[in-house]
């Protein structure tokens, strides 16, 4: 790690003032990703502004029947919070599919959104990487790209977003509350992360001088018919090759509202309104699920080592939608995929 200064923010306004004064500083909460990146010299902030003691740790019901999650709620506390377990079990399962319990105890809700890709070239400062050093080139496109993206890629970057929690938050239509010098604003979850295009160094639409204060869930949580299936190289404590969050309303055997989001396939949690439209009003059967998968993957493109992800995603979508329809969500401890 390089030298850096350390200071604590006293409140949200103080934190925003401090980052405005020193734009090369960074906020730190759980630190699980930032400290690691600083050890690797990938991140070199001039200073760390400790926000971990700010009063953003509540999980509260909102007036419209949703839930507001403070940005500093640890991932483990969120997964096991009664409101989340009962009303948003898709979110619980996605969180518990990610990292280890030690990391979930440290990692914050806001920080989970802001974690960086685990592309090995991004981490290796001896190799070119447009995300780490804009304009230096992408080592993954012609390199070992087994874990990389198949959707929404650009000539600059084929990295994926690593979060499981964010896949569920995308499927659940969450909102992200942020505060900056100009005041507060709210971003739809699907607008929070961005595709790489020609500037992969920018992961999100959060401005550098803004602080995430909360993530808000709408009332609809799909507690009856949901599943989160994460497919990876080992059965626990590994990043997804492909992960699928599925949720639906069922009336008889017919699908009402449906949600489908994928992780491990793109620079952001991948949602496709056309695929969800293809589920709505249709019978909950294999043919319907296969059609939705084909629509979602219509523009998928494989690279030398990751073409397998297209078939894996297609089968995974069908399997996860089937689990959701049958109300037999994937267990995160019994690893058998049924």
């Amino acid at each position, binding site marked *: 790690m390089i030298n850096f200064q350390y200071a604590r923010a006293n409140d949200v306004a103080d934190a925003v003032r401090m*980052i405005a004064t*020193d734009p090369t500083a960074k906020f730190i909460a759980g630190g699980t990703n930032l400290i690691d990146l600083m050890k690797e010299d990938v991140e070199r902030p001039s200073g760390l502004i400790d926000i971990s003691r700010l009063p953003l740790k509540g999980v509260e019901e909102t007036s419209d029947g949703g839930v507001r999650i403070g940005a500093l709620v640890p991932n483990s506390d969120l997964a096991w919070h009664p409101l989340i377990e009962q009303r948003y079990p898709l979110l619980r399962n996605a969180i518990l599919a990610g990292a280890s319990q*030690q990391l979930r105890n440290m990692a914050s809700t806001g920080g989970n959104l802001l974690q960086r890709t685990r592309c090995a070239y991004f981490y290796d400062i001896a190799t070119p990487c447009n995300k780490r050093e804009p304009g230096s080139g992408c080592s993954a496109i012609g390199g070992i790209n087994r874990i990389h993206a198949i959707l929404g890629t650009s000539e600059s970057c084929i990295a994926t977003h690593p979060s499981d929690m964010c896949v569920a938050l995308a499927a659940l239509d969450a909102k992200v509350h942020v505060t900056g010098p100009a005041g507060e604003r709210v971003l739809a979850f699907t607008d929070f992360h961005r595709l790489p295009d020609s500037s992969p160094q920018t992961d999100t639409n959060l401005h550098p001088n803004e602080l995430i204060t909360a993530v808000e869930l709408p009332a609809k949580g799909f507690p009856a018919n949901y599943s989160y299936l994460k497919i990876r190289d080992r059965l626990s404590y590994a990043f997804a090759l492909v992960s699928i969050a599925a949720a639906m309303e069922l009336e008889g055997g017919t699908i009402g509202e449906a949600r489908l989001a994928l992780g491990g396939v793109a620079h952001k949690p991948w949602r496709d309104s056309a695929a969800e439209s293809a589920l709505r009003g249709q019978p909950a059967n294999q043919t319907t699920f296969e059609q939705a998968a084909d629509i979602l993957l219509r523009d998928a493109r494989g690279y030398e080592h990751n073409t397998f992800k297209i078939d894996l995603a297609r089968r995974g979508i069908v399997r996860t939608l089937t689990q959701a329809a049958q109300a037999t969500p994937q267990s995160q401890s019994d690893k058998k995929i049924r």
Partner: protein
Amino acid sequence: MTQANTVGRAPTSPAPTKILVALDVNGRQRQLTVAPWTTLLDALRDHLDLTGTKKGCDHGQCGACTVLVDGRRINSCLTLAVMKDGAKITTVEGLATEGALHPLQQAFIDHDAFQCGYCTPGQICSAAGLIAEGKAKSADEIRELMSGNICRCGAYPNIVAAIQQAMGTMAGRS
């Protein structure tokens, strides 16, 4: 802690100031002066000579550095000591009471739940956190919630058995 730092409050970047940190480590009040980049792991091992906590990968991937902070298990290698000012830390050295081994320590001996022993302090602290959480009941659930602790000797079946024994012992006591 001292308030000598200037991040976010001045445009220049003077040399980092060492910061006074107070920690309750295994029931004992400790004060140490550390640079901001000192991890809790390095503070415990190099500043307080508590070398029971091990440095494995130093990247949060192996779990050898697991300690309890305010009763919760975390990776001390990814934690800055300055951020834990005022916290209560329990390391493997703090688990035994008045000469009696902690039930997990006894269970690891009873089940031969290690070979080289390097991961063992992290395994035991992690298991102490797991039992306090109260979420793992079955062997599958123990395996899943212990997956942040790697054992390259492959003592996993005995580790699970040891944790099951300690869970029974501790449930009987409470």
